[in-house]
Structure formats: structure tokens, C-alpha cells
């Protein structure tokens, strides 16, 4: 009996300083505790709410851990086939130029099976936003090696570590994309600390605002953890990410207003 009493007593308008955005559906997320997806969902939906563009936004969800993103995001959404989200978004934006269109994709989806769709949509300079979650693993299917899996990193299909001689090198697709003329804004962010979360949200806002000006692709990579796939606790996985992922996938802006940022890895 106590709990409902406490809730109603506390949930008064004057007490609320922070709340779940109405653009996130009130249901449990399907993500593992500790995963970064939920945070990115929230930042994206908060941004749409703050911009007041819920009714003008069409999202495209991928295949992978975030295949059910449309169940959590309270906007109109279309679930793409594996890797094809940029093709869907291309046509949607071309036929609805006044809408805000984004894709939300993982590393397997965007950088393996969907590489052609990703590269060509970016190269055409389509005017939508790509949000790319890179955790270096196929989470949904149970922790297989991804295109972004680090050298030596273990996964269920590289159980002795990724041998780059036989399994290929991890693909820095974000750097690749930054070099395409159709791409206006490329940044790499993270969501494992409040400071990083704030930066990611800022990047999302910048990317969506850019759609009003028809400047081409805005591409946000979020380097994230996969504590389940990496077989770690959430805390361990964030530490491991800082020590291993960030040196290989350095955070920060890579391209801003159509120009490569001098300090970025690409420019070096």
C-alpha cells in the first residue's frame, strides 16, 4: 500500500525537475541492463521533443539489437531489412523533403551487410541523419564477430581473438564516410558518462537541425559497450571500452560543415 501513496505524494508538478520524455513509450526496453542503446534512444527522443518535430519525423529502424526501436520511440517508424535502412531513408526523404528522417543502425547492419547502401546514400548527399551504434559485436545474434571487432578481440565466431590475417581488419567506416563529398557532419561520441551523454545529445541536435538546410548526410557514431556480448559487467565493459575501443575509434568531431576537422584521425 505504501508505494502508490509515495508515488502520488512525490509526483507533483512542483517537484519534477527531470522526467521521461513522452516520445519514449512507457514500456520496458528490450536491451540488457548496462547497454548504451537506451541512453541513445532517450537522447534522440528528447531532442525531437525539444525541437517539436514529432509529427514531422519518420524513423527507420534496423535489424540487430535495436530492431524493436519502433516499440520504444513514439514516432512513426519503418523497420528496414538488415542493412537497408539508408535505402529506405533515401526514398522517404526524397518523397517527403519537409520531414525529418533518420536511420538508427548497429555496426553489423551499417558496416557489413549494409555497406553499399550506407556508402552510396552518403555519397549522394542524401539529406537525412544516420545514428550508428558501434559496439564491435553482433549483440542480437549472440556475440559474433562484427566488421568493427578489434584485432585480437574475442567473440563467438573469433573465439581465439580476431586474427586480422584471416578475418580481416576492423572497418573504420566512419572515417571512410567522412571523406565523401555528400557528407556534411561526422562525429564520434559515447554515452557511458553524463558528460559524454550531453555531448551526444548536442550532436544529435546539430545533425537534425542540419536537415532544415539540405546540407547532406549527418552521421553520428556512438561507440558503445556490449557487456553481455563482451562477457563483462557493465562497469567492466565501460572501462574496457575506454581502454581499448577509444584508442582505435577516437571520440570527437571528424567533419563539421563539410570540412574535415584537422585534429581528427582522418586528417592525420
Amino acid at each position, binding site marked *: 500500500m505504501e508505494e502508490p501513496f509515495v508515488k502520488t505524494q512525490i509526483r507533483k508538478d512542483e517537484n519534477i525537475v527531470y522526467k521521461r520524455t513522452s516520445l519514449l513509450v512507457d514500456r520496458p526496453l528490450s536491451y540488457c541492463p548496462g547497454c548504451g542503446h537506451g541512453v541513445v534512444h532517450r537522447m534522440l527522443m528528447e531532442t525531437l521533443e525539444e525541437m517539436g518535430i514529432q509529427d514531422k519525423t519518420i524513423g527507420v529502424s534496423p535489424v540487430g539489437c535495436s530492431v524493436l526501436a519502433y516499440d520504444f520511440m513514439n514516432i512513426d517508424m519503418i523497420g528496414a531489412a538488415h542493412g*537497408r535502412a539508408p535505402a529506405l531513408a533515401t526514398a522517404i526523404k526524397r518523397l517527403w523533403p519537409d520531414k525529418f528522417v533518420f536511420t538508427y543502425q548497429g555496426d553489423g547492419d551499417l558496416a557489413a551487410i549494409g555497406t553499399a547502401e550506407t556508402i552510396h546514400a552518403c555519397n549522394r548527399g542524401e539529406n537525412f541523419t544516420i545514428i550508428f551504434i558501434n559496439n564491435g559485436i553482433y549483440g542480437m545474434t549472440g556475440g559474433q564477430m562484427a566488421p568493427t571487432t578489434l584485432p585480437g578481440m574475442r567473440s563467438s565466431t573469433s573465439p581465439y581473438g580476431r586474427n586480422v590475417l584471416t578475418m580481416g581488419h576492423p572497418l573504420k567506416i566512419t572515417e571512410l564516410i567522412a571523406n565523401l563529398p555528400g557528407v556534411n557532419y561526422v562525429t564520434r561520441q559515447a554515452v557511458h558518462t553524463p558528460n559524454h551523454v550531453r555531448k551526444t545529445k548536442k550532436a544529435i541536435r546539430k545533425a537534425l537541425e542540419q536537415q532544415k538546410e539540405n546540407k547532406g548526410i549527418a552521421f553520428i557514431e556512438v561507440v558503445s559497450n556490449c557487456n553481455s556480448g563482451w562477457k563483462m559487467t557493465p562497469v567492466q565493459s565501460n572501462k574496457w571500452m575506454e581502454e581499448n575501443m577509444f584508442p582505435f575509434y577516437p571520440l570527437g568531431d571528424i567533419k563539421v560543415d563539410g570540412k574535415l576537422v584537422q585534429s581528427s584521425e582522418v586528417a592525420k
Partner: protein
Amino acid sequence: MGELRLMKGNEAVAEAAIRAGCDGYFGYPITPQSEVMEYLMAEKPHERTGMVVLQAESETASINMLYGAAGTGKMVMTSSSSPGISLMQEGISYMAGAELPAVIVNVVRGGPGLGTIQPSQADYFQAVKGGGHGDYKMIVLAPASVQEMCDHVKLAFELAFKYRTPAMILSDGAIGQMMEKVVLFDPIPRRTEAELISQNPWAATGKPKTREHIIITSLDLDPAGQERVNLKLQAKYRKIQENEVLYETLGVDDAEYLFVAFGLSARICQKSMDLARAKGIKVGLFRPITLFPFPEKQMNAIGKKVKGMLVVEMNAGQMIEDVKLSVGCSIKIEHFGRFGGIIPTPDEVVKALETQIIGG
């Protein structure tokens, strides 16, 4: 009466799309259908009607562009030829599963594999039996003339939106490439945004505060839910089977024998009929126009009136399976076909009738 023009089948498809009020075309070059996109690009439909035309990086991308646009209620079309259509099967299956309308034109060439660029009808099974994964069907129209290449575009859009399902025009390299006179239907204005939203309340067009958010997907992880999806699809296909059958007959009233053929083969069989009748053979022609829904009842009825049927196809014997399922085993039904881009001559069709059915 509409405008009369001399056109290639592929050009007629393109012009018909503009006139039908199509919102977007997405395609990838492949012989023998490249004139569709070439015509559209030259015609600047963006200036004529506001229609968007985009050359994609692959057929995989084209069909997924259709999937995305169709999910927002737009009228969209692609065209390709056999190998390209194989690449599209993933997207077609997703569209069937998500119940999205779109028009896909297959100007069939000989296979398997890279095959040849010459005409063929070897994609009948792929078109009619599903093609991609899962239990689904497409509405399949089989034009036999440049006129029908034009008219079937309009019809395919109507049926696709009526039933919220992808519709295919199953043509071939000869009908795509040949020039005939065609009467173009009067242009239909593209739907406005307000019309689109009111006519397609299921479409993902941006969520206003007044309704729940719309999700376009073919995914349902709950087996009971996915079975419900399948049952709904099957009920829809039964409704299509009941209501949308189209076919044509020629000289069947006194016929003792029957040619059964679709598309280009039916055109050849018309000449074969004349040749056979000059010899005193009473033969008629049954031409299914919709391959799905197949004219099962009509075939069954006509099967009771004739002594035998020759199914003429530019493949190794595909539609004959549907003919036999419709007619049963009471009469002789045989297949005659040429493959790999060879078009049968009217004479060899008559000879096949004489040896396989009459004398056989």
C-alpha cells in the same frame, strides 16, 4: 480517346507510370529494360508531375527504396530484369509481410544465372509462387502487347493499393523492346499529401498528437502473432483469387483443342491458331492475364469442353503446373517450350500440337 503513340514496351511502362500519378521510380540499369529509366530521366517527370526518379546503386537498394517510400503511402515503382529481380526478392518479401503496395516490372530474360539478354518466361515460378522467403504471393499481370504494358501499370497500382500488396508486371525482353502503337490513358494527377494521408491511414507519415504512432514492419517475434499475420495474408490472397482474375479467350466456342499461353507466347499462339485452323484443326487459345490470381475456375470449365491442351511457354514447363492443378487429369495436357532466349515459331507450335496432343 487518349493519345496515340508508337512506343517501345519499356517506354510505355515509363510513360504510364508518370500518367498513373506515380510518386517515385527507383531502378538500376539492366538489359533488356534499361529504356524504362532512360525514358523517365529524359522526360523530366519532376517538372511534369513532381515524380521523383532516382538511379540506385543496386537492385537491392532500389527495392528497399520502394519499401521505405511505400511505407509512407507513396505510389512507387521499380523495373528490372531477371537477375535484378532475384536480388529484389528480399525486399519484395518484406513488403508482402508489411502489407505495402508497390509495382515491380520484370522484363524477363533467359536464365539461370547471368543467362542471356534475350526474352524468356522462365521467371513464372519466381513471380507467381512467391519468389522470396515465407508464405506470400504477389499480384502478377502478364502483358502481351505494348498497349498492355501501358495499361497494366495503372491496373497494377490500383490492385496494389486496393489490397496493400506488391504487384508485378511479368513481361519479357521482346515485349519490352518491340514497338507498337499504344493509346495512352489520360494523366491522373498525383495525390496531394492530404489525400495520401486520408486514403492511407496505415502509412507512416509523421505522428500527430491525435493518433498512435504507426509502425511498418514484417516482424512479429511471437509465433501466435506471426501466425495471425500469415492467416491475414492468406485471407487476402483468397479474396484476390475470388475477385481479380483476368483472362482472354480466342476461338474457344468450337475448339477441340486448346493452346494455353501467357504474354508473348500467347501472341505467337494466335498465329499458330490461324495456321492450324487453315489445316482444319479446331484449336482455340486461353490466355491468363493475371498469373496470380490464376484463372483456375475458368480453366477447369474449359477443360471439360476440349480433348487436349498444349501449354506453350518460353520456359521448361512452369505454368503447366497451374493448368494441370486447375483442369485435373481427365484430358491430355502437355508442355511445349523453348528456352534461353529462343522464341518459338508459330509453325513449331502447330507441329507440337499435332505430335504431342492430337497424334500423341
